[in-house]
């Protein structure tokens, strides 16, 4: 179950907000490039586009961050709009979302599903189960 599958299946009934946050593995930080080149990366690692992207540096301004977010949005290839966290990382911090994370928020504004911290807690299949359960409860 990929994010693209989820979006395709549910986007008419669920609002998807992709939120681009601070780069998890920039070249000038905790880069995974060397491990990736050696083929030693666990399969779970990789950004929103589903693979380890190399050559990305940690954006230092909001303009740089928007530019990289735009590249990421293009790589996602399913037309979903990406929103960009500000340089103070306020939203990322409020949701403890680094390096990646999934949530489902109900109609009342409360958390219905809180996924674990990525990469190992990033489970689109779990989000699907939560969406199915929530939508069926809504019907009932």
């Amino acid at each position, binding site marked *: 179950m990929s*994010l693209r599958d989820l979006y395709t299946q549910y986007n008419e*009934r*669920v*609002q998807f*907000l*992709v*939120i*681009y*946050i*601070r*780069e*998890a*593995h*920039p070249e000038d*930080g*905790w*880069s995974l490039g060397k491990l990736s080149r050696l083929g030693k990366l666990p399969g779970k690692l990789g*950004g*929103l*586009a589903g693979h380890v*992207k*190399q050559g*990305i540096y*940690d954006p230092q301004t*909001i303009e740089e961050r*928007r*530019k*990289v977010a735009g*590249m*990421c*949005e293009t*790589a996602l290839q399913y037309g979903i*709009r*990406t*929103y*960009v*966290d500000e340089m103070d990382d*306020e939203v990322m911090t*409020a*949701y*403890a*979302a*680094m*390096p*990646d*994370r999934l*949530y*489902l*928020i*109900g*109609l*009342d*504004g*409360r*958390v219905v599903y*809180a996924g674990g*911290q*990525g990469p190992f807690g990033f489970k689109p299949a779990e989000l699907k189960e939560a*969406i199915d359960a*929530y939508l069926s409860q809504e019907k009932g």
Partner: protein
Amino acid sequence: MTKPNQSLKSQRAWQRRYEPLAPKVGDVAPDFELRDVNGENAVRLSDFRGKKPVALVFGSFT
């Protein structure tokens, strides 16, 4: 302060610090307003209250 993406150690330290503050099932989700990759089309989480459930997908390119 060390950036959370500087090393595995710094990322783990960041996670240990902020994980206890993450919203849990049943909590009111923290509201926010963000703009798209062009700095336009501002969206607020609360815009969808009473209209549609919202899936939040956090991540980066790497």
